[in-house]
């Protein structure tokens, strides 16, 4: 089974679009007539699919409706598109600046986490030292630590660091980026170590015989080979960064530093005392969901297969 899995990255440089685990075993069963149970299963599956698609459509249509209209009839099509929901959300609801913050924080932190994790994952995957397995274990254990354990300590540490360095950490996007990089390390190392481990050792050996130095081998040979793994790790970091809520909620205080999830929470809050603005709220939700949806439509197979191959190692 491991053999099967480890073949894949070899083919990656030759056919860049091809994701790993593209193993020619797609048709496990012969074409038999599905049983009654199978038919029922299929119906249920398609109902589920329909429900999920409905949610997306419903989210978009609701974001274009008038709040009073939504309250009267929660299911319905916009009579005329209320684009002002989006302008409200974008400008006054603070989603505009939050979207920019989210993009910056997510992209920068994802780049950094991959850049820092990749070399570490590589040496851990290839090293024969006994220490390495201790370190690997450390990273794996990090995977299981719930964010709530780290919340207060990290906050206090950042505050102390801010006092000493006068670099803004609390309530700043750069502070959030640092936290996201730090928190993302274990998963990214874990994921990439799996990819590196599956790389054929022969190519590196050939490079070494050619006199290539270790760092050159890594940059020129290993990284390109592991490209699909790196992209996957980056994508996953982007997704988890985009959705990060707990630390952002505690760290970011002012409106100009909010990220999208926090802007959404703030928007939810105002329905107390002044009434809910469902139209604006759904416009905000569309802003939160759409980028992930687009990314998924564009690179979905890579995300899905990369994520699962990384896990099944």
């Amino acid at each position, binding site marked *: 089974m491991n053999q099967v899995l480890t073949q894949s990255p070899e083919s990656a440089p030759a056919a860049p679009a091809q994701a790993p685990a593209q193993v020619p075993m797609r048709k496990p069963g012969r074409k038999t007539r599905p049983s009654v149970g199978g038919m029922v299963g299929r119906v249920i*599956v398609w109902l589920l699919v329909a429900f999920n698609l409905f949610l997306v459509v*419903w989210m978009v249509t609701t974001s274009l409706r008038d709040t009073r209209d939504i309250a009267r009839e*929660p299911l319905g099509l916009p009579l005329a598109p209320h684009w002002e929901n989006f302008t409200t959300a974008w400008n006054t609801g603070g989603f505009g600046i939050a979207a920019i913050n989210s993009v910056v924080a997510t992209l920068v932190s994802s780049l950094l986490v991959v850049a820092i994790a990749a070399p570490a994952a590589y040496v851990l995957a290839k*090293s024969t030292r006994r220490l390495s397995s201790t370190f690997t274990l450390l990273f*794996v254990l990090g995977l299981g630590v719930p964010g709530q354990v780290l*919340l207060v300590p990290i906050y206090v540490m950042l505050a102390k660091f801010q006092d000493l360095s006068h670099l803004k950490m609390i309530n700043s996007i750069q502070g959030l980026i640092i936290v996201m990089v730090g928190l993302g390390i274990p998963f990214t190392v874990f994921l990439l170590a799996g990819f590196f481990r599956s790389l054929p*050792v022969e190519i590196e050996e050939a490079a070494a015989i050619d006199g290539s130095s270790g760092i050159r*081998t890594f940059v020129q040979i290993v990284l390109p080979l592991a490209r699909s793994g790196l992209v996957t790790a980056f994508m996953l970091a982007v997704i988890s960064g985009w959705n990060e809520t707990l630390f952002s909620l505690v760290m970011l205080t002012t409106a100009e530093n909010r990220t999208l999830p926090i802007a959404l929470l703030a928007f939810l809050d105002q329905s107390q005392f002044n009434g809910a603005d469902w139209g604006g709220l759904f416009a905000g939700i569309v802003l939160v969901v759409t980028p992930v*949806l687009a990314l998924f439509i564009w690179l979905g197979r890579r995300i*899905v297969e990369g994520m699962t191959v990384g896990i099944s190692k």
Partner: protein
Amino acid sequence: MALPALPVARGRNTGRPRAGMSAIERSRRRLYWPMLLPALLLMLLFYVVPILYAGWLSLHTWDGINELTWRGMDNYVQLAKDPIFIGSIANTLKILFVVGIITFVFAFALTMVLREMTGRKFVRSVLFFPTLINAMVFGIFAGFLFSPAGPVNKILALVGVQDPPKWLAQDNLFNLIMIVMIWSATGYFTTIIMSAVDQIPAYYYEAAGLDGAGPWTKFRHVTLPLAWDVISVCAVLWTMSSVKVFELILVFGGSTAQAPPTSTWATAVYVYQAAFGGGSREFGVSAAAAIVSLALVTVLTIGLRRMLRREAIEI
């Protein structure tokens, strides 16, 4: 077959140096620390030190402003006596076991159905997608969809259900939260399990078929044992993520800007509420609750791995 699922023990053998390959080995050794150190440092700063700090904090009383005072184990004693905390642990365990088991059953059923279905990739993608969305969004959706005059009840009324379940009643709130979790997690685990099942060579099934095995026997004796590694990794992953559930409950259970009803709290919510919610600011208690949840996830992970490993051998 019972390979350890996490890469811990496997780190060493793959890169075993071969005769005459000491050049590559030497350059690797030279690069070992420079390449490892940045990540290791971050690990230390963002995991090891904070955990130690949380442990230390959990032995004190602190409101975040005035001086720390030593409290010894009293924070833990207080937690043990607090029915709300016990309830939040129970909820976390419910998420872990109830949601986990149902999700896995669903994931396997879906895998079996999808195996022979047209459009499987499309279906898989659509079912996978919820995994990628911030759970808060589902909290908002559910409150809307399941409200008494909301879409779900309207549709039920069309089919003739006049007395729909009280979806958002407090007793059901946590159940509904669990249903949303099952729905959003099933796609993810289906995908993982599917990719593992896809790796099983078709001739195993053919051979089993020749021996007269039905679908259940094939599942029991081919699929399950061959995909066991992946299942045990999934179980560990689920354990870890179940302790982290936070946003969904925060938005789902709470009417605007209020704490969610205590009956829906899981450990993460308890930790947040003790520190930041409602002006209580008990950072010591919060840290103690956090440490308990860390201990919980550790014990559960180890226990689960033991259990799953043994079963794998039995098969």
